[in-house]
């Protein structure tokens, strides 16, 4: 449009490094590990509690993984439905009155609590947490009501194309392993009884192996004392169960699942990725960014900013404890489905077989270092980051050491990591779309299983 003279982009000032948070730690007599950090700012405290909660592999018999998952799901959803002294509504009102919010949920590896509260309400919130951990009652009316509600919510959840694709992908990658199905079916839920939840609670919600992280505007020693006062009486004798090892990644054709009339195809490709403690981690992280892990990547430039096939292509890494994975995601318009897959495979192949540019690598490196600092710049962000690190067996020093690892990654390191983890023939592919329109074009590119 208007012609205006170009101006030079200003240089950066000298960076002011973030101070490494000081983490106070105490292991209570019951085995609970407590981490506390003072972060001045708003008068709030952020709490995260991780309780190991893995289930078995396989189905049928005494160690039915699917039955366990159904129970665990409902346990997370009804844990706050009543204690020895409070009904569900009383508990909710008490937490609200403290300026607090408290939630609990389970996944294939753990039970997680998240809470935030006005600092003035922290003792009260810890008292509620103590009651929940030591005397949750799982009232029959609430369990049955929540079970029915969950069946409805799951039906709504599973009506989303992204969920259909995720469930198909995880099932294909992990089979009967607990990671193969994150959520129960209506039938499995209908088998769950309140008495089973009470029994599961007693066996598995134990302080040994659990980690509580507290970040807020209060002295760490006071935070530790408050937690110890509230939770030292939590003495369940259960044992932490580790998630079973993952099966080998599957071979086989891409899976195409029908969504008749869909105006977009939901494309997902996924495979194993290095964990945070793997020597490949930093190099892989940068290779993934260069490929498609942020907006300024090759894949986004190609299929969005050049060709307009999609709105939000993204290559994301998740770190569940039994094995990390990378997942390449894009929702592409139906007529461009095959072309989008072609470009995706091309960009994966390119990053896996040809050197990345030094400039691309440096840009990805600065991004990775920068967003790590941003992620700890609020109380909530710092609490979540520290809790995740602790769950992976890492301490706060990782926030200092990881940037140094990123700084050391070379072009060759990045290519080697990409070849190991992003080569398209190593990834499991799932597409959800209108089979009538996309099957034939897709078959020109890949072996396809329709089902």
């Amino acid at each position, binding site marked *: *449009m208007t012609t205006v003279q170009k101006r030079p*982009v200003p240089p950066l000032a000298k960076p002011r490094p973030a101070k490494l948070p000081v983490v106070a730690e105490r292991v209570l007599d019951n085995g609970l590990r407590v981490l506390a950090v003072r972060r001045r700012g708003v008068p709030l405290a952020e709490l995260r509690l991780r309780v190991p909660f893995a289930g078995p592999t396989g189905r049928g018999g005494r160690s039915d993984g699917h039955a366990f998952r159904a129970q665990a799901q409902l346990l997370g959803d009804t844990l706050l439905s009543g204690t020895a002294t409070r009904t569900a509504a009383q508990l909710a009102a*008490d937490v609200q009155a403290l300026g607090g919010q408290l939630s609990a949920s389970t996944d294939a590896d753990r039970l997680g609590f998240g809470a935030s509260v006005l600092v*003035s*309400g922290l003792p*009260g919130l810890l008292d509620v947490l103590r009651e929940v951990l030591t005397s949750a009652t799982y009232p029959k009316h609430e369990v049955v009501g929540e079970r029915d509600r969950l069946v409805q919510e799951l039906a709504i959840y599973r009506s989303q194309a992204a969920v259909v694709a995720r469930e198909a992908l995880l099932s294909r990658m992990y089979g009967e392993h607990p990671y193969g199905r994150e959520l129960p079916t209506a039938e499995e839920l209908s088998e769950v009884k309140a008495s089973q939840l009470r029994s599961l609670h007693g066996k598995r919600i134990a302080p040994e192996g659990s980690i509580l992280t507290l970040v807020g505007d209060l002295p760490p020693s006071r935070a530790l004392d408050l937690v110890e006062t509230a939770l030292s009486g939590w003495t369940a004798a259960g044992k932490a169960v580790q998630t079973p090892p993952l099966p080998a990644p599957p071979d086989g054709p891409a899976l195409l699942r029908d969504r008749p009339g869909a105006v*977009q195809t939901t494309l997902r490709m996924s495979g194993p990725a290095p964990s945070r403690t793997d020597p490949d981690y930093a190099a892989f992280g940068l290779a993934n960014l260069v490929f498609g892990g942020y907006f300024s990547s090759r894949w986004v430039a190609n299929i969005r900013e050049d060709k307009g096939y999609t709105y939000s292509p993204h290559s994301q890494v998740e770190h569940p404890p039994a094995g990390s994975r990378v997942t390449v995601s894009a929702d592409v318009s139906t007529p461009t489905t095959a072309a989008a897959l072609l470009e995706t495979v091309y960009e994966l192949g390119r990053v896996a077989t040809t050197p990345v540019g030094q400039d691309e690598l440096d840009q990805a490196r600065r991004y990775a270092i920068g967003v790590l600092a941003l992620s700890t710049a609020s109380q909530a962000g710092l609490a979540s980051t520290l809790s995740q690190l602790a769950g992976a067996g890492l301490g706060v020093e990782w926030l200092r050491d990881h940037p140094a690892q990123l700084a050391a990654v070379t072009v060759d390191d990045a290519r080697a990591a990409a070849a190991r983890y992003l080569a398209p023939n190593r990834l499991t592919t799932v597409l959800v779309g209108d089979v009538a329109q996309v099957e034939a074009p897709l078959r020109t590119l890949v072996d396809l299983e329709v089902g």
Partner: protein
Amino acid sequence: MKQPRARRAATKGPVRLAKAASPSYVVERFSLDNGLRVVLSPDTSSPVVAVAVYYDVGMRSEPQGRTGFAHLFEHMMFQGSASLGKTEHFSHVQGNGGTLNGSTHVDYTNYYEVMPSAATELALFLEADRMRSVAVTQENLDNQIAVVQNEIRVNVLNRPYGGFPWLMVPPLLFDDFANSHNGYGDFVDLESSTLEDAQAFFDRYYAPGNAVLTVAGDIDSAQVRGWVEQHFGDIPARPVPERPSFAEPPLAQEKRAVEHDRLAPAPAVAMAWRVPDPADLATYLPYVVLAEVLTDGDASRLQERMILNDRSATHISGYLGLLGDPLDARDPTPFLLEVHHPEETSLDAVVATVDQELARLASDGLELPELDRTVARMTARYLREVDGVLGRATTMSVFEQQRGRAELVNELPDLLRQVVPAQVQEAAATLTPDTRALLELRPGTGEDA
């Protein structure tokens, strides 16, 4: 700056919020000769900075035949500017360790970066460059029309409950095109958008005098003021468009409509009322509190009754503003209640229960402890939002733009605390069946009925 802290110990009863729950962020403001309003809020606790630019134009300003244009234009602002080629804005921000985005709302369009504070001047330069001149080519326009269409597909057309209720309620609740049209855009309108439209939209609405710039975080005010003058100061002033009134009278009688959603497995209903002009916070905030009394958590009126007790609903939410932020829209704006329910519960039963609970609040009011606990959590949630530099910058921007008062960032907790039970009761009394819009979402195509 050290923040004052609440000192009250926990009690079994509700915490009466002391004034100490208010934050005390620094607010400094100045204007440039070209009309740009600037808010600075230094806070050196983390070496990060948020830079936000709010243009006073949103979906409401779109002309007939150009639905979705404000949002499409937001995309164009990332496609190149006076000194930057396509994708360079992204690479300068991300490649220096930052994140960025933009979003289009009913009454404004915003752009922001969160960066290491060493990149403050860079972020200001980038925003100034595209305020000075946006550089769009036909190729980029065509590309972004395709991208926006894919955004609508993923968020609306290929998604169950897509656009429910934010795209479905306005045509029922409002009559004026400005308030009632589809702000995401009709595909025909999007495809017929031209470069001339883009230049005209930029010239008219992206004048420096129509914008607020906020910089919050690890900054030195004097230095940032110098950078702002250096990079934004020579952008020529342009006339600032007068914002027309979009006010409409309340509905004279109930209006109902049915939408069929072939992807949805279960029914849902949205109820919407027009509320008093948000400009008058004393009249408006009781409605914001009312939404929470009704729907925030297991101890709220509707959730306790419908989800916990009689199980007539599976999901309930209540909020002010089409996009769920009560303090980011001007008049007119809706109060919305959204209920997802099982097939076994009839629509009539759901509506009757909601009416009963509203009537009960209107006749009996509520006790102070219920109000206090509601406001306690609202306050904590608000503090959590402004704890991050981005939440703080965006909150201050919209307060400054719409109310000329970024200081509200610190004052809001006290204003919430001043709401009394009688005001919530009076607000509930206005949400009657005869002034509401009721949108029913039915699963299926509607063809087998």
